[in-house]
């Protein structure tokens, strides 16, 4: 259902509420503001942080980051809110049933991820996916995505960090690669190295969801950069405004994405992968 609300035709006021006025939040905000300014219309863009009172007379609040989303939800008073850089699961937990809040998710659609994995590893017959307490909610979505992408998956639950390595060993028996999904138990900073080292020893590549993870040892990852998120959000806002109002109650995965490949890992595992650009084009070209 698409709800359009035309609050102000002449000069829409947009407040960018940042979890922190720095880093990826600032990057995304800058990108968004820059893109929006380039669009027709007299955009009144304001910046805010959760520790200050939010201006009330805004047409749209763009909450960048989870903390910003929480603050925006508290203070919006039913006015439209767009969530940026927040994973789908988090967004669902915080904003379910709130129709004035929509989101451009931080994460990639699972189907896209599996497709990319297939592209990168043509011989892939099954992908092993360790799921933690948080990511287990994606199990159903994962089955759907597997069917859509034609890449069978096998999932194993991990309740504690200590179980992770044995879980991976188990999964490795019939999987040719691992898909890593965001979960504090599965992919926590302190255990990443041992995780990757273990997968090397198992000689199974890992596909992850961020550039730092690729640097840390994942074979490849697909993700949306903050700048891409900001840009895509700006287009989305502008298009909505052009169509007569801000989008409300509709959330989606980003269309823009980036791919990173760790060549060292590929070489170590004796894998030959196309370049990131080629992969991107192939992925975009897929139905």
């Amino acid at each position, binding site marked *: 259902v698409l709800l359009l609300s035309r609050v102000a035709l002449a000069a829409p006021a947009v407040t960018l509420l940042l979890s922190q006025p720095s880093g990826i939040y600032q990057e995304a905000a800058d990108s968004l503001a820059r893109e929006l300014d380039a669009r027709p219309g007299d955009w009144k863009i304001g910046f805010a942080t959760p520790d200050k009172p939010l201006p009330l007379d805004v047409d749209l609040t763009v909450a960048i980051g989870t903390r910003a989303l929480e603050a925006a939800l508290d203070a919006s008073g039913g006015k439209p809110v767009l969530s940026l850089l927040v994973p789908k699961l988090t967004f669902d937990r915080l904003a379910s049933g709130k129709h004035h809040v929509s989101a451009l998710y931080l994460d990639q659609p699972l189907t896209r991820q599996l497709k990319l994995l297939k592209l990168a590893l043509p011989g892939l017959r099954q992908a092993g996916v360790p799921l933690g307490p948080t990511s287990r909610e994606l199990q159903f979505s994962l089955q759907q995505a597997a069917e859509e992408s034609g890449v069978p998956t096998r999932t194993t639950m991990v309740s504690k960090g200590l179980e992770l390595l044995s879980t991976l060993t188990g999964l490795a*028996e019939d999987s040719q690669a691992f898909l890593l999904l965001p979960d504090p138990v599965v992919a926590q900073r302190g255990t990443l*190295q041992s995780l990757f080292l273990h997968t090397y*020893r198992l*000689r199974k590549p890992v596909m992850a969801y961020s550039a730092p993870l690729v*640097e840390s040892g994942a074979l490849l990852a697909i993700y949306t950069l903050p700048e891409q998120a900001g840009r895509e959000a700006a287009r989305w806002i502008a298009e909505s405004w052009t169509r007569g109002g801000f989008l409300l109650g509709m959330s989606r995965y980003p269309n823009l994405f980036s791919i990173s490949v*760790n060549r060292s*890992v590929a*070489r*170590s595992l004796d894998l030959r992968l196309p370049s990131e650009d080629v992969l991107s084009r192939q992925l975009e070209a897929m139905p």
Partner: protein
Amino acid sequence: MKIRTRAFLLGLLPTLFLALVLSAYHVYSRLGELDATVRQQGMALARHLATAAEYGVLSGNRRALGSLLDEALREPGAKSAVVILPDRTRIARGDPHIELPAPHKLGQWQAGKRLWFMHPVVLGKGGERDLFFDDTISTSETLAWVAVGIDADQTRVLARRLLLTSLVITLLGLALAILLINRLALTGLQPLMEIIDTVRNVSAGDFGRRLRVSAHSPELRQLQAMVNRMSESLRSYQQDMEERVRSMTAELEFKKREAEQANLAKSKFLAAASHDLRQPMHAIGLYVESLKPQMQGRAAEETLNKIERSIASMVELFNAILDVTKLDAGVVQPNVAPLRIRRFLLDLADEFAAETDHKGLSLRVRAADVWANTDEILLERILRNLLSNAVRHTAKGGILLAARRCRGRLRLQVWDTGSGISPEHQPRIFEEFYQADTDKADARQGLGLGLAIVSRLARLLAYPLQLHSQPGRGTVISLDLPLVENPAASLDPADAGDRAPLSGRALVIDDDPLVRDALGELLRQWGMEVELAANLRQARESLGNVPDVVLADYQLPNGETGLMAAQDIRSGFGRVIPVALITGDTRTETIRALRLAGFPVLHKPVRVPQLRSLLATMLRDGKSSRSAP
């Protein structure tokens, strides 16, 4: 080596040896361990780094590798750490500017001051299930290489530190050992050193020196006590000996005094006896001489001659005793002058001719006509004694008086074919009163003083005296005299006629009336005017005219002496009058005093020819001195 040094070395050397050996062993073994440790450490570091680098290499995480290498360099001694990736790129930390060999083998090597350890980075095994499933994992697959450079110097630095530490510990140990040796060992020796010191002092004569009995060891205590006892014994022994020596010395002193007194008594007795005998003998001689003209041609003349000869023998005897006394007193001084030896010997032989003829012996003189430097009177006395002896001891054969040159000197010899002297007697015949052949009953054997006088005179004149004799064959006695090659002039004195009358006035002073009268009578017979005086007073009174010569007895009554009389008369007339002293006193102090006074002295009993000769000389000298201006 001193005992203290020995003890010190005994304590120190084993310690030193042990310290050095242990230190050397310790250093040697530690160095070996150190080297092994460094190598193990290097290899372990490389292995560890390889393992740790596995993830970084696999993930291509250069930052992670970099921090890993940084971490490795914090290990002690690690100077370089390198990861060589399969594409030959390197991630290096430290000082890796070095040619690394082809990194395809595990190992270690040394390049310069760096020990290199290389280890491959391999992919480890996946998990326990791999034990059951043979998957495609190749565990030996090399992902990359790590090389670790360890400073080889650190071994040397550590070795130096180790050596230094060992040295310091050794030195400290030695210092402690020296301290302990000094404190314990040498302190223990102290009593021994004290004992040595004490014994040294005792041996140097410090008897009775004591030592504190302070040693801890019972043996040393015993030794100290024994040294004290020995020292004490020596002291008491010394005291005992000193006491004995003192008493012996005192005894000897006493005996010596006794002997001296006995000798003195003997001398006094001899002197007194000879003096008392001389007086009458002197008188008898003078009377016999004065009787001779009266007895001429009468039957009693022969008897008178015999009396005269007997008197002459007795005078000889007295003179011999006197000679020995005088020679022993050292008052005889030789008056040396050149002497024509041949003539001297012929004259002497003439005197003995009658005697030898009487015994049926031949007496010959064989002499070169040479001159010798000698005292004629003393030499005559020597030869006269020797000839007398020869005649006395020769029964048949003859006597030879010889003079010949021998090695630049003149050798005088008296040969005889007499009984000879057996070898056992030869060394002693020159002693006084020694008679070799006492068993022979020879009335004219004499007193045994002849050779004693000869030996004393020869010693006085410094003539070597030699005796060669064979019992039954004969005897030869030799004397060596200094020769005179060219005497300046003939000093042969004119032989004044013995029988020429003497003219002049003589004053005779003698307290013995017999002697005084006899002397007066004799002088008158010789043609002199004589004044007689018994003492000094009479002498002064009797002097009407100045006497030409004075004959004074030395010992006069009332403590007066002939010397005093001579000086009195000389001062009375105010001129030098020749004075001769006659004495029977044979004491050496008297003889010495008379000699010092410078007057001619005649000893009682006076030989008449000697008296006449002296008077003749005095009268001649007196005249010449008076006629001198």
